[in-house]
C-alpha cells in the first residue's frame, strides 16, 4: 500500500490561515489503512483545526468527507457539490488524490494534509516500512524476495557495503535492517548462495523515474 503520514499541525494551520470554509477530504484506501487519512483521521484533524482557530479568535466552518478512492474520478465526483462550495479543500489522500482533485477542479485551492512516503508494509502496530521502489523492472526472483533497490540504503546490487553490522544498516541501526543480510540469509535457506556470486551488471534505470514520468499503456483494453 501507499504509506503516508500527516503533516505537522502548524504547517496545515499555515495553509488554512485565512480560510473560513474548509473541506477536509479523506480517502478510504491505503491512507485509511495506514491510519493517516481515513475517516477517523479526518475527524481528528477537523477538531484540531477548530480548536486552534478558536484559540486565535477566528471562526471556521469545516465539512468532513471521505472518498472511497481519491485516485479515481468517479469517486471524487460523488463529493463535487462540497468541493465547489468550499474555499479550500484539504486532502488527506496521498499525493495522487490531491493532484486528481486539483486537476478536476481547476479553480479550487487544493492542499495536501499528508506527506506521502512510500509503498510499503505494516511491520508492527503503528510502524510501516518501505518495501518497493517501483523501479519498473522487478528482480525479486534473484534476491530471495528481498528488494535491494528499495531496501538497501545505497541500492547496491552486488552485496552489502562495509556498513552492515549485526544485520543492521549503519544509516540507522535502530530502524533499518541490512537488506543484504536478509538476502544472504534467505538465499542460504533456499540453498542458492551461489547465485549471489554472479556479478550483477549496471542496472538500467530507464524503466524507473529516470526515464521521465512514466505511463502504463495497455493497448488491448484501450477504447
Amino acid at each position: 500500500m501507499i504509506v503516508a503520514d500527516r503533516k505537522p499541525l502548524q504547517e496545515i494551520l499555515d495553509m488554512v490561515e485565512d480560510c473560513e470554509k474548509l473541506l477536509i477530504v479523506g480517502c478510504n484506501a491505503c491512507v485509511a489503512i495506514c491510519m493517516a487519512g481515513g475517516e477517523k483521521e479526518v475527524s481528528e484533524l477537523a477538531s484540531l483545526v477548530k480548536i486552534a482557530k478558536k484559540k486565535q479568535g477566528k471562526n471556521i466552518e469545516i465539512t468532513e468527507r471521505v472518498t472511497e478512492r481519491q485516485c479515481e474520478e468517479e469517486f471524487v465526483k460523488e463529493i463535487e457539490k462540497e468541493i465547489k462550495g468550499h474555499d479550500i479543500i484539504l486532502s488527506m489522500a496521498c499525493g495522487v488524490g490531491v493532484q486528481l482533485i486539483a486537476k478536476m477542479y481547476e479553480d479550487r485551492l487544493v492542499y495536501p494534509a499528508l506527506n506521502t512516503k512510500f509503498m510499503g508494509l505494516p511491520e508492527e502496530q503503528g510502524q510501516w516500512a518501505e518495501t518497493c521502489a517501483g523501479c519498473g523492472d522487478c528482480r525479486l526472483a534473484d534476491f530471495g524476495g528481498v528488494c535491494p533497490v528499495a531496501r538497501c540504503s545505497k541500492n547496491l546490487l552486488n552485496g552489502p557495503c562495509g556498513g552492515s553490522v549485526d544485520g543492521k544498516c549503519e544509516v540507522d541501526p535502530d530502524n533499518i535492517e541490512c537488506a543484504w543480510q536478509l538476502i544472504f540469509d534467505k538465499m542460504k535457506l533456499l540453498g542458492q548462495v551461489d547465485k549471489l556470486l554472479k556479478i550483477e551488471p549496471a542496472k538500467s534505470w530507464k524503466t524507473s523515474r529516470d526515464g521521465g514520468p512514466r505511463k502504463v499503456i495497455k493497448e488491448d483494453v484501450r477504447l
Partner: protein
Amino acid sequence: MKSGSNLETVLNSGEFAVTAELGPPKSANKEFVIKRAQILKSYVDAANLTDNQTAIVRMSSTAAARIILDEGVEPVIQITCRDRNRIAIQSDVLGAAALGVKNILCITGDHQCFGNHPDSKNVFDIDSIQLVSLLKMMRDEQKVLGGDTIKTPPKIFIGAAANPFADPLEFRVIRLEKKINAGADFIQTQCIFDLNRFSKWMNMVEDKGLDKKTHILAGVTPIKSYNMAKHMAENVSGVSVPQEILKRMESAKDPKEEGVNICIETIEKLKKIKGIHGIHIMAVQWEDIIPEIVKRIGLYPRPQI
C-alpha cells in the same frame, strides 16, 4: 603491464608494497596537498587521495592527484559511487588518466547522512563492483559502458576495497571474489586492529586461492589517543577495535607513542601472512607519522624500479 604505474611495478616485482592515504583539504589550499606529498615522498609507492571521505566536501581527488604528481608522488585516486552517475564517473576517469593518474580505487562511498550535506541526493547509479567492471571495460575493451569505442583508453591499475570486519563474514569473501572476477588488480582493506577476525577472513580467502588472483594490501591506522580508539570502536561501522587495544591506549603514558607501537606490531604480524602483498597506512590527519612507521618496520627505502 596494465597501467605502467609504480604501484603495479612494485607489486609485480614481488616487493612488499607501501601505500598511504592523503586526505585532500576542505579548501582550495594547494600548499596543504604539497606539504603532505613532500612528507610521503620516497616513503610510499603511491598515495591514495580520498574522494570526499565520509561525505564531507573536500578538494577533488583528481585535482589533488595532479598536485602530488608534480611533487613526484604517485597517486591512487579513489572514486565513490555516491556522488556521480556513470556518465560523470567515466568522464572523470578519462580526465584523470589524461592528467597522469594510473591507479584508481573503486569504492561504494560512505552514506551522505554521515557528512556535512545530509540533505543531498545520493546517486549510486552503479555500485563499486560494477565500477571495477567498468574500468576494466574502458581499459581492456576500449569501450564506454554505453558501447562507444575509446580511441585512447585510460591505462589504469584497478583497485577495490575489502572490509573483513563488516557482516555477514561469509559474504565478505564472496564480495572479494566478485571484485576479483570483475577485474580488481589490487585490494586495500579496511583498517585492521582485530587480527583474530582478520585471520578468519584471510583463511577463507586463502582457502579459495583468492590471494593468488589479486594483490591484497592490508590497511592499518595509527591511533592518536584513547578517545580516537573509543570513537572508532563505538561509532564507526565496520571497524573492530579489540578491548586489549582500548586498554593499552587508556593506560598509555604517551598515547601517540603507544598508538604507533600498536600499529607497528600489527604490521609485523600482517607481513608474515603470505597472501598479504603490502600495507596501506591510513593515518587520519596524521600524515607526518608515516615516515617513522615505514622506517621502523624496515620498509625504507622503497624500491626504485
